[in-house]
């Protein structure tokens, strides 16, 4: 008996050694962190099953709950990193603390031709120099490396938004300036104080919570005719890319004075300054908010909820507003909300230094950049999720609608993994499906064919073919890209002060007695100048350095 037992033990030990020798073939579980909230996929998710069958890889996802910087700070302090690491908007933190490996050790034209071809056109922007002067790439961007002509069917970034019913009520006017926008909201609210159920409308919402305070502090640059440079305004026409913080400048005062006026006219509720993101989404989803400044992706859940509830007239149109000439010494400002495509630098998955098998992840990504896998991730399984007719990729109304259903998604799409992974976007350039779009949401037959009746009539009233026609077509960016992507961790503390003062005082300015506004504004400028100067000067240098990198100087 004892001999048998020891024999079994020895056998067990030998067997346990075998998989180590064949580690590459052995199924593995990769830990994954996503720097934003999300839904855990279901155990029987069909796409993850395919991945497991083909690559022997399972994923264990952790999504962000709470504050991103706090979470990352904890991970860094404990060097407790997942295998696949998406640091969200704060990836600079994990990169600067040495949490990610250099992908260029594994990616090259010979071993990984597809990945190389994917990053090659934008390598001036993507590949950086580390402290030792070596070429490094920590993250292959999750978005923005597109093939073919840029597709813009609707605005997905920043804009002033307004409910479609407001424009319809006003007889489909053209709204291009700040004054026109607030007059429109004011007039609609005066004529329609409540919705059909008797719930009062809210004229204009301003989300101020945590990092989403861009709804409060970003609009000025857009009103000045610039795309999203974060918290600075860059003069692209000046040879040295003059960069300054805008919030402390006289042209910013006009916007907050306008909001102060709107507040006293009853367009803005006090509660907007203390509401959190969930409350904001709930408010938008109920269809009572007439307008707001935001980025379309930020309230995607609300849009989906409104569509689900067939409240199409309460969904939003993105308007590209600029200052009226009276606010900027009579200048006419040209609107610039939509950009030429730009890689989402330092956003997406990196591979952490704790990962035991980086070469295996790279090999998997390489394989996943094939047309076959990109179709699986984007479109799903042929016959189930889409069909093909005369070389066109198509979806039935039902198939397209279920893509908005969150329950369906956790069973049938691998979004938690795919969203942060390298991916093909834009047009399919070659192969049997050339001429189709990678993303079904861009496919012309689907965008236009499956649009609801309300939207069709709405666009027809304007004589437009798509919602992006409300703003200028994409404008190519200056060489430095968009300044919001720039790493400002060296002036982190100054930047925090800079933001804190805005978070605290801009709501005060909006709510204060109009008679006190000028005095309070002067106080605001005085308080913010030290941190604004420090941050602005740093950003100016950083913008120049970024431009020099891309221009190859």
């Amino acid at each position, binding site marked *: 008996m004892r001999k048998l037992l020891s024999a079994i033990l020895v056998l067990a030990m030998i067997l346990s050694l075998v998989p180590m020798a064949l580690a590459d073939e052995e199924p593995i579980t990769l830990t994954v962190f996503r720097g934003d909230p999300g839904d855990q996929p279901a155990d029987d998710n069909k796409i993850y099953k395919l991945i497991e069958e083909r690559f022997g890889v399972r994923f264990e996802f952790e999504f962000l709950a709470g504050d991103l910087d706090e979470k990352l700070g904890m991970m*860094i302090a404990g060097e407790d990193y997942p295998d696949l690491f998406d640091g969200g908007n704060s990836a600079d933190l994990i990169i600067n603390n040495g949490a990610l490996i250099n992908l260029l050790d594994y990616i090259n034209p010979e071993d990984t031709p597809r990945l190389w071809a994917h990053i090659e056109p934008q390598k001036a922007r993507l590949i950086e120099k580390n402290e030792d002067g070596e070429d490094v790439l920590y993250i292959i961007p999750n978005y923005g490396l597109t093939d073919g002509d840029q597709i813009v069917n609707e605005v997905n970034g920043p804009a002033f938004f307004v409910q479609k019913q407001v424009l319809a009520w006003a007889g489909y006017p053209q709204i291009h300036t700040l004054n026109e926008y607030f007059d429109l909201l004011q007039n609609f609210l005066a004529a329609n104080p409540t919705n059909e159920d008797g719930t009062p409308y809210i004229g204009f919402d301003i989300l101020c919570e945590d990092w989403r305070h861009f709804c409060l502090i970003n609009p000025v640059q857009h009103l000045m005719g610039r795309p999203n440079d974060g918290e600075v305004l860059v003069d692209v026409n000046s040879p040295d890319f003059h960069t300054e913080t805008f919030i402390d400048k006289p042209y910013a005062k006009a916007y907050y004075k306008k909001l102060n006026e709107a507040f006293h006219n009853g367009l803005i509720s006090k509660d907007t300054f*203390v509401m959190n993101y969930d409350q904001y989404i709930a408010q938008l989803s109920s269809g009572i908010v007439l307008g707001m400044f935001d980025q379309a992706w930020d309230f995607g859940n609300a849009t989906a909820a409104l569509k689900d509830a067939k409240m199409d007239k309460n969904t939003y149109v993105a308007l590209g507003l600029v200052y009226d000439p009276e606010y900027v010494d009579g200048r006419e400002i040209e609107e610039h909300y939509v950009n030429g495509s730009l890689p989402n630098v330092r956003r997406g998955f990196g591979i952490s230094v704790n990962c035991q098998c980086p070469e295996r992840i790279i090999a998997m990504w390489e394989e996943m950049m094939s047309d076959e896998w990109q179709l699986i991730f984007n479109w799903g399984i042929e016959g189930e999720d889409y069909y093909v007719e005369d070389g066109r990729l198509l979806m039935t109304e039902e198939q397209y609608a279920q893509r908005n259903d969150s329950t369906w998604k956790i069973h049938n799409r691998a979004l938690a993994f795919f969203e942060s992974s390298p991916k093909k976007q834009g047009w399919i350039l070659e192969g049997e499906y050339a001429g189709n779009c990678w993303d079904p949401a861009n496919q012309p037959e689907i965008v236009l064919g499956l649009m609801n009746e309300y939207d069709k009539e709405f666009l027809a009233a304007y004589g437009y073919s798509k919602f992006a026609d409300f703003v200028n077509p994409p404008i190519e960016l200056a060489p430095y890209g968009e300044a919001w992507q720039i790493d400002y961790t060296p002036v982190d503390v100054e930047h925090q002060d800079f933001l804190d003062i805005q978070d605290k005082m801009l709501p005060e300015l909006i709510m204060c007695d109009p008679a006190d506004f000028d005095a309070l504004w002067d106080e605001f400028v005085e308080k913010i100048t030290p941190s604004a100067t420090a941050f602005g000067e740093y950003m100016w240098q950083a913008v120049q350095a970024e431009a020099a990198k891309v221009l190859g100087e």
Partner: protein
Amino acid sequence: MSSIAKGTQQNIRPVRKKGFWRTLGGQWQLMLMSVPMLLYVLLFNYGPMWGWITAFQDYKPKTGLLGSKFVGLQNFQWLFGREDFINSIRNTLAMSVINLVFGTVSSILLAVLLNEVRNRGFKRTVQTVTYLPHFLSMVIVVGMAQNIFASNGAINNLLMSVGLVKSPVFFLGEGKYFWWLVGVINVWKEVGWNTIIYISAMTAIDPCLYEAASIDGAGRFNRILHVTLPGIKSTFVILLIMNIGHLMEAGFEIQYLLGSSVVMDWSQTIDIFVLKYGISKQQYGVATAAGMFKSVVAIVLLIGANYVSKRLGEDTLI
């Protein structure tokens, strides 16, 4: 009598004369039992104190505890040069004191009232209903409070309908209300729970005292004043000393959840400050310095309260 006393003395004397090691040897079973506790405290309470060294460093996770540069008192200078850190000390202390006063007064009041209730069913129901909120997550409590105190919430509707205010009071967005809001929410959540310990102290009061007081002609109010309250005095003092030791911890969740940028000057506590700069902004040295400052103040407060209590002839904790 004297022989018994002598005998007792004889029994005691040899023990007293034993040396330290012999005493230790004699009680080895007890000592053995305390070893896990000792290890626990050494490992988890004293061990991490080594990390306080980061308060004097420009700590970077990359270089670690041994490789980071020493910067002397620079972290402390930075801290005390910041208005928002001074504000967070003020907020922490203010909210602590409000919580302590509100919490103690309300729970003693409720305990006294419950103690006077003779109907057991009613008493139990009230007790259960009042302590159940203790088990609610702060996230839920704050969510409810945000609805109740919103411009169109229940409180404002009530105030408006009885004509006390003309336009809604902006409870959640004005700094001056914040501390009191925290106090009220804490009372709502914890009053029943805090009552338990006082009620149990009251059950330990000898019923003869009440009888004697009645015979002496004391009414209900006088019995409360002269029997019940003195009876729970020692519990009250011990709890007070313990709470004073925690004065630098005004809570974290409630301020974190209820606060917003517009009331930041009034809502940020030391803990939130530490989280914001220490963890989010990677200023680990500064965060440790702030934490160290907090601990030192807490120790001083605790010893101070203990000393005062001793001088006043009350029970002491240490």
